[in-house]
């Protein structure tokens, strides 16, 4: 009997200690208090000069570096209502996540604060969402300035490459993961960027998924001219790893050594993509081997 009581008390003590550790710091914020529920939205908020107003972000909001110091209120796609409410927000901004989570959020936040639901799956949607956020936060001027600049970058690329017929485009294979081989499919923002930059995303043939898994044979038959590697943790050996795969020595990109690692700006559907699209055009169209790393 005694021993059970002791065990229960210990468990209770551990829980209390854990809960203390988990409490977010209450930041003193002047004006609008904003909670961002995705890393992309956090980036947009910083671009709009609203970094100081953010009182809560999703777990992987790590860019710009200042975002790392903001209290976390759950993971992207899995927000924690209790933590959000504790941050006392005036405005909660979320990217599209699963419908049940959204309904839950809407119910919980009704009457407490404003809730903004946005899509950032394509470049156009990023521009549109930035405008909406600017509107909701009274930063329309800055928003207009930003989106005009982004729009211009897109138009420049379009002027350069939009007219290219399919057969003149550089054949690009994007490798998202190696185990299994995962690439980016049609409708994906990366696919859109590759098209914008004058390339042809070979993964577009794999319809039905934004991140399709394909077989080795398929990639060999596609015979890409450029292989783009998108994986944060990959070390320097990725080139050898890809080149040494069975039968991949016949792929044009492997023969010419045009295997390029993309920086993590390409992993996030956020404002950094516009600059990244410009860089992508250089990567795709440069004949020389080059490597992109980090920011």
């Amino acid at each position, binding site marked *: 009997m005694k021993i059970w009581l002791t065990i229960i008390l210990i468990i209770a003590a551990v829980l209390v200690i854990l809960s203390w550790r988990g409490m977010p710091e209450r930041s003193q914020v002047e004006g609008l208090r904003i909670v961002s529920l995705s890393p992309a939205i956090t980036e947009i908020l910083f671009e709009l000069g609203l970094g100081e107003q953010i009182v809560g972000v999703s777990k992987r909001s790590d860019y710009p570096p200042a975002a790392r110091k903001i209290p976390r209120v759950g993971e992207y796609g899995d927000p924690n209502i209790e933590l959000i409410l504790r941050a006392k927000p005036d405005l909660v901004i979320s990217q599209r996540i699963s419908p049940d989570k959204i309904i839950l959020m809407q119910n919980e936040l009704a009457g407490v604060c404003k809730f903004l639901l946005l899509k950032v799956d394509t470049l156009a949607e990023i521009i549109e969402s930035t405008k909406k956020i600017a509107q909701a936060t009274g930063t329309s001027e800055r928003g207009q300035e930003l989106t005009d600049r982004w729009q211009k970058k897109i138009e420049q690329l379009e002027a350069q490459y939009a007219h290219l017929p399919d057969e003149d485009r550089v054949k690009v294979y994007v490798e998202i993961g190696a185990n299994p081989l995962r690439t980016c499919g049609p409708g994906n923002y990366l696919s859109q960027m590759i098209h914008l930059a004058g390339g042809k995303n070979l993964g577009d043939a794999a319809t039905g998924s934004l991140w399709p898994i394909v077989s080795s044979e398929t990639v060999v038959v596609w015979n890409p001219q450029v292989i783009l590697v998108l994986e944060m943790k990959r070390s320097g050996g990725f080139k050898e790893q890809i080149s040494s795969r*069975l039968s991949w020595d016949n792929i044009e990109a492997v023969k010419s050594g045009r295997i390029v690692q993309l920086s993590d700006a390409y992993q996030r559907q956020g404002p950094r993509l516009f600059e990244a699209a410009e860089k992508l055009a250089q990567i795709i169209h440069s004949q020389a081997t080059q490597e992109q790393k980090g920011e």
Partner: protein
Amino acid sequence: MSEKAGRTFRIGVLAASLGLVVFLGLAIGPSGWCLNNWTILKLRLGSVLLAAVAGAGLSVAGAVLQGVLRNPLADPYVLGMSGGAGLGYGVVVITGAVWLGSWVLPAGAFAGALATMVLVYLLAKTGNTIPVTTLLLAGVIMGAMTGAMLMFIVSVGSYEQMHDLVWWMLGNVQVTDWKLPVLVGAATAVGVVLAWVFSRELNVMVLGEEEASFLGVRVELAKKLFFVVASLMTGAVVSVCGLIGFVGLIVPHAVRLAIGPDNRKLIPASAVVGAGFLILANTFAQVIIAPRVLPIGVVTAFLGGPFFIYLLRRRRKGVWT
């Protein structure tokens, strides 16, 4: 037909079917019908060989464990191997050690499977014997515990890592280099031959341990041998191909339904049927939604389930003994 002619006929049918399946596996792939391009054939040959090795290994491991444990529900994963291998694999994925080299993932999975095997063995050991029931229970418990740890890893991991892990759990036989498949092939070949050599002992042990010892079988030694052989084969296959389900359970049963429970025939026949079955399943997995790929485990269940139900309904009398 005389008994001998019948046997020759059966062996002939089996060999011919395997040949046909291998041919199909080489000729058909995600890029369509192709027989004259060595670059592509090389890839398909790799997958066909690995599928054959995995199919044979898992089926024989299943047959052996069903016999030793005297339990029709036994499959290669019943002793907790799947959980252990999955945990090893999960740890590698989550720590990001993947990019140290292509050997890290299989090494992690194999280490996990091996560790589980040793733990199950130690748990089940009572004095100098390993009672079958204790072994089975130890396996189930270890499987559940490692499974829970794997789920913990999955739930703290990122979305992509989670998806890759799930994909691995459903199995695949893609070959990116020759070294690992050759290693697994060698290990599996040794295991299959050992199981076959000792199939007489296995036959006797199915009758019961007491009976087997009366008939001159050193039961505890034999049990350990079968346990180690089945575990090593499963661990080797799992480390490279992931957790391909269904084969190890269904193939031995199907073969038993067709040719009877004699392990001297059951072991080699299971190896051949298992190999052919996985080659076929892999071809399906590669082409059915090409250029995308299905996990092979999905196909094995889809193809194997209905076929097994058919066999079961056709011959409903006692097939187990």
